[in-house]
C-alpha cells in the first residue's frame, strides 16, 4: 500500500509548526496505525532526519496515550478504537492521510503529535477520588450493597482512559465528557456520596481554570470516544453541579 502522509511537525512548544508531506510505500493492511508510523520513522532515521514524535505505551487500547487526529477524526475513522488498535486495512492504496495533534489551548503541543495532557490530571486531582481510611480497619467495599444497574453504569463511566479524544473532537475543545465521566463514576456509588458536593464543584472549577471550552451538546465527544462514554454523564454532572450549589 502506498500512502501520502501529511503530518504536523513542531520542534518544540515554542516553535512554529507546519504540515509536512511524506510519501510512504510498503504499508501492509495488517499493520496497526502506530506500526505504520514506526516504519515512517525508521525511514526518516535512516535518512538522518528527525523522526515524528508521537505518544504510545500499551498499544492495546487501554493507556490512552496514542492520540492523533487522523483525517479530521480523533483516533481515525473506526469507532470505539484507539489509534493503536486501528489497522491500515481501513485505508486504501493511494490514500492521503492527514495526521495532527489534539488541538486545544489546554493541551499545548510538546513536540510534533505529542500534547501535554496534564490538565486532565489536575482535574482528577481536584476531586476524582474517595477518601478512604487505610489504617487497617478499612471496610470491604463489597460489603456495601449496590444496585447492579448503578454499579454497571459507574463501571462504564470509569472505563474512560483519559485520552482526550472528547476534547479533540469537540468543536469547542470542551472537556465535559471526561470530567463528567470522572464525576459519575463516584456520584453513582454510595462511597462517593460523602464528597459529592466538593468533588463536582472542585472538578468543574479546575476544568474551567484549564481553559477548556464549553459544551454545546453536539455529541461529537461520545461518537469519537474510544470507550463509548455516554452523554448522560454530562447531564448527570450538570444536575450534580446544581445540587452542589443550591
Amino acid at each position: 500500500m502506498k500512502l501520502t502522509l501529511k503530518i504536523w511537525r513542531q520542534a518544540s512548544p515554542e516553535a512554529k509548526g507546519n504540515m509536512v508531506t511524506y510519501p510512504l510505500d510498503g504499508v501492509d493492511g495488517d499493520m496497526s496505525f502506530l506500526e505504520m508510523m514506526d516504519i515512517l520513522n525508521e525511514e526518516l532515521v535512516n535518512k538522518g532526519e528527525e523522526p515524528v514524535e508521537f505518544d504510545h505505551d500499551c498499544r492495546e487500547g487501554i493507556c490512552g496515550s496514542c492520540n492523533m487526529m487522523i483525517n479530521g477524526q480523533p483516533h481515525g475513522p473506526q469507532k470505539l478504537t484507539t489509534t493503536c488498535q486501528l489497522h491500515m486495512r481501513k485505508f486504501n492504496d493511494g490514500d492521503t492521510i492527514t495526521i495532527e495533534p489534539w488541538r486545544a489551548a489546554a493541551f499545548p503541543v510538546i513536540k510534533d503529535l505529542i500534547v501535554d495532557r496534564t490538565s486532565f490530571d489536575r482535574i482528577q486531582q481536584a476531586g476524582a477520588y474517595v477518601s478512604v481510611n487505610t489504617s487497617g480497619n478499612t471496610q470491604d467495599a463489597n460489603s456495601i450493597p449496590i444496585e447492579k444497574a448503578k454499579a454497571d453504569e459507574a463501571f462504564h463511566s470509569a472505563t474512560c482512559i483519559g485520552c482526550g479524544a472528547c476534547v479533540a473532537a469537540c468543536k469547542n475543545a470542551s472537556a465535559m465528557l471526561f470530567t463528567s465521566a470522572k464525576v459519575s463514576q463516584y456520584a453513582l456509588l454510595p462511597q462517593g456520596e460523602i464528597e459529592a458536593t466538593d468533588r463536582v464543584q472542585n472538578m468543574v472549577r479546575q476544568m474551567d481554570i484549564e481553559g477548556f471550552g464549553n459544551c454545546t451538546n453536539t455529541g461529537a465527544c461520545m461518537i469519537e470516544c474510544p470507550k463509548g462514554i455516554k452523554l448522560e454523564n454530562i447531564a448527570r454532572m450538570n444536575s450534580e453541579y446544581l445540587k452542589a450549589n443550591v
Partner: protein
Amino acid sequence: MSALVKSSIARKWIMALSGLFLVIFLTQHFVINITSVIAPDTFNELSHFMGYNPIVQFIAQPILIAGLIIHFIMGIALEIKNNKARPIKYSKYSGNANSTWVSRNMIITGLVVLAFLGLHMYDFWAHEIAYKFIYAEPEAATRYYAETVHKFEPFWRTVIYVIANVLLAMHLWHGFNSSFQSVGAKAVNKGNGLRKFTYAWSILIPAGFIFIALYHHFNQIH
C-alpha cells in the same frame, strides 16, 4: 455567587433556561398568530389584550426582552470562550462524521434569527410602541388583523419570514432538545418521547409560522 455564575455549567443552565423560556413564548406566539388564519376576530381580541393588558405590557414583555437579551449575550460569550479554547484550528476536521451541521453552527442560525428579529420588531413592536406612546393614537380593537395581513403583502418580506423560520427550525432542532441535556435531564439521551417531542415541536411551530406568512401573502394576491 459570582464564581458560580462564571462557571461553565452555570452558563449552560442560563443558556438552556432562557432558551426554554423562549420556546414557551414561541408556543404562545404561534397560538395567537394561527387565529389570524382561522378566526380573525379572535386574533383582534387577543392582540388587543396583549397590547393593552398592563401585566403583559409592563411585566411579561420586559421579562421576554430580558430573556432574549440574556440568551443572545450568553450565546455570544460562549462562542468567544469556545473559540479561545482552540486557538490553532485543525487543517482537516471531519465534523460531519460525529455531529450535525446544525449542532455545530448554532451561532450562525442564532444570528440569522436575531437579525430577523430586528425586522420583526420593526414591523410589529416598534409600530405598536409608536402607535401607543409617540402618536398616542386611540385604542382600536379591530385594527390588528388588517395591519398584520398587510405586512405580508410584499413578496420580499414573506420570503424573509420563510427563510428566517427555516433557520429558526434548525436552531430549535438542536437547541430545544439540547436544553434538557444542559439542565441535567438524562432521559433526553435515550431516544424517548421527550426527544421526539422536541424534534416534532421544532419543525411544527416554525412550519406553522411559515404557513401563516404564506397564507396571508397569497390570500392578498388572489
